[in-house]
């Protein structure tokens, strides 16, 4: 109920459009300004502000239920926010379908449960979007896809079906699939948490390699080692708020907030 109510107030009370091309901080590829989101009456994201520069690598962590996944999913509009602004690559995410389509083309996403399409082969999974969304010729798309598959080190599995691969392999395919759209930004939603320990490394290797190539990355993960090696910034979220935001060495060695300290104790202790 609450949701529809807000939708309505929003639709009717909508005032002046925000110019999408106005860029006072043009270096920021993602800008989130006082963004709020509710599930019904439940306030999941509280007044978030974040600015990500081109090529920046950000790791988001926090206890479960802190809203980090929801936050990252707002950035390509898998979830709708109700207040504030999200501007991705100079395009504001509004109800405008064209904007959403454009943003999704520029933003790749990797899910916790891979979400590969089980009825398509690995190669078909990778080519699907380039062919149907980017309108790339099939042959070109396949060649590009093979390149990315090589980059994630599974070119030999191209003609298998996702069900025939191990979890780690599947996740690498998912990364390749996202890369095939040549996105400017990659979102990772706990990419390793559904994997067996021995498979986590192969996925992280790929992600580290990707980070080295200068890709803008937003990564929700509990892999603190990864955060330490790769991240430019670590963001700690709790209760729908950004509690702390710091470069990794500062974050791990000298956390400011008590909540962060407690979290780090729990996660690093065992």
């Amino acid at each position, binding site marked *: 109920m609450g949701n529809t109510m807000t939708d309505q107030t929003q639709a009717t009370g909508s005032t002046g459009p925000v110019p999408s091309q106005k860029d006072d901080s043009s270096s920021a590829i993602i800008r989130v300004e006082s963004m709020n989101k509710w599930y019904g009456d439940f306030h999941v994201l509280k007044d978030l502000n974040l600015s990500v520069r081109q090529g920046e690598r950000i790791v988001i962590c926090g206890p479960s239920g802190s809203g980090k996944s929801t936050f990252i*999913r707002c950035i*390509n509009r*898998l979830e709708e926010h109700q207040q504030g602004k999200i501007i991705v690559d100079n395009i504001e995410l509004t109800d405008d379908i064209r904007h959403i*389509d454009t943003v*999704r*083309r520029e*933003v*790749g*996403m990797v*899910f916790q*449960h*891979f*979400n*590969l*399409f*089980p*009825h398509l082969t690995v190669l078909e999974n990778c080519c*699907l*979007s380039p062919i*149907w*969304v980017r309108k790339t010729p099939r042959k070109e798309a396949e060649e590009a896809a093979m390149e990315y598959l090589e980059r994630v080190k599974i070119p030999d599995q191209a003609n298998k079906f996702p*069900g025939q691969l191990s979890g780690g392999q599947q996740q690498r395919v998912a990364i390749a*699939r*996202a890369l095939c*759209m040549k996105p400017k930004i990659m979102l990772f939603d706990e990419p390793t948490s559904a994997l067996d320990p021995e498979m986590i490394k192969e996925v992280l290797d790929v992600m580290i390699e990707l980070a080295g190539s200068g890709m803008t990355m937003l990564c929700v993960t509990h892999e603190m080692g990864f955060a330490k090696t790769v991240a430019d910034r670590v963001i700690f979220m709790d209760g729908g708020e950004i509690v702390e935001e710091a470069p990794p060495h500062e974050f791990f060695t000298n956390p400011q907030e008590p909540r962060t300290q407690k979290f780090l104790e729990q996660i690093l202790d065992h």
Partner: protein
Amino acid sequence: MAEPMLKPPKVAISPLDWMRQNLFSSWYNSLLTIVVGYMVVTSVGPLFTWLFFEATFLGDEPSDCVGTGACWLFISQRLNFFIYGFYPDEFQWRVDVMFLLLAVCFVPQFIERFPGRKWFGLFGLTGLPVVGYFLIPGGNFGLEIVESSKWGGLMLTLILAYIGIIASLPIGILLALGRRSEMPIIRGICVVFIEVWRAVPLITVLFMASVMLPLFLPDGMNFEKLMRALIGITLWQSAYMAEVIRGGLQAIPRGQYEAADALGLGYWKKTGLIILPQALKMVIPGIVNTFISLFKDTTLVLIIGLFDILGTVQSTVTDPAWQNVAIEGYVFVAFCFWVFCFGISRYSQNLERKLDTGHKT
């Protein structure tokens, strides 16, 4: 999956042990076995005697039926009528061709390792109706026209069920998508459509289609009787089809929708490339089951005066030339339906089992 290195030891079970375990495990089981066994023996014996041992299989005339058993002559003498209805003898090859093509398309589906059986099936769903459209009624390519009023028997039964399923599939898909739409009015329209058709008996639908449809349509617009029955059957069936497909749509995990969204696929591409292929594959058993029930329900067209296989038999069992052949006629029709339905249902059960395991790995 690796083969187990050692086969488990075979435990030899003597028939006596088997009986002790499965028939006489306790006193009431023993009693049950004896009572039920007695009933089976006393009823199966006479049944088989009537069906086979004392039945008449050979001969040309009613008077050749002399035994106390069934008179299968009646069936063999009228077989042509039961299969083709009034379809003229000289053109029956056309129907035979269709029967053959049907078998070519669908028999491989039962054989696991048949090469390219998917394509045969696909042709059966798309190309075959087109071939049939030209072949059965004629009128093109120098084929003589055979009016639909002359179609009948098994052939008509198959046509009704087959066209009914194929035509209801796309409508059912649209209705199912509509029922899962986020737009309340469109969802409402689809729900009402589906629920109304599902609530109404097929007889009333057929009756409406057969005699009232022209009343609803503008002057001058009319279809022949068979076509009208098909329209009625299709609309009725599409409501059931929609519910089957909706089940498949609901079974697709949310992640699939999200992944497609994240790749920037629009609604139609998402639906057409990702969701439907998976959903439809999942509901093939369900579709096959609706086919079976539609196949059985086509017998109802006899009530509106079409001669399906039951209709042809029903209209000849009163033939005074043959003495009391009603039971033979019914047994024959029952056998025809049983063979079809049982075979197909076995196929769908197989498929269900296979899809089941496919999901777990």
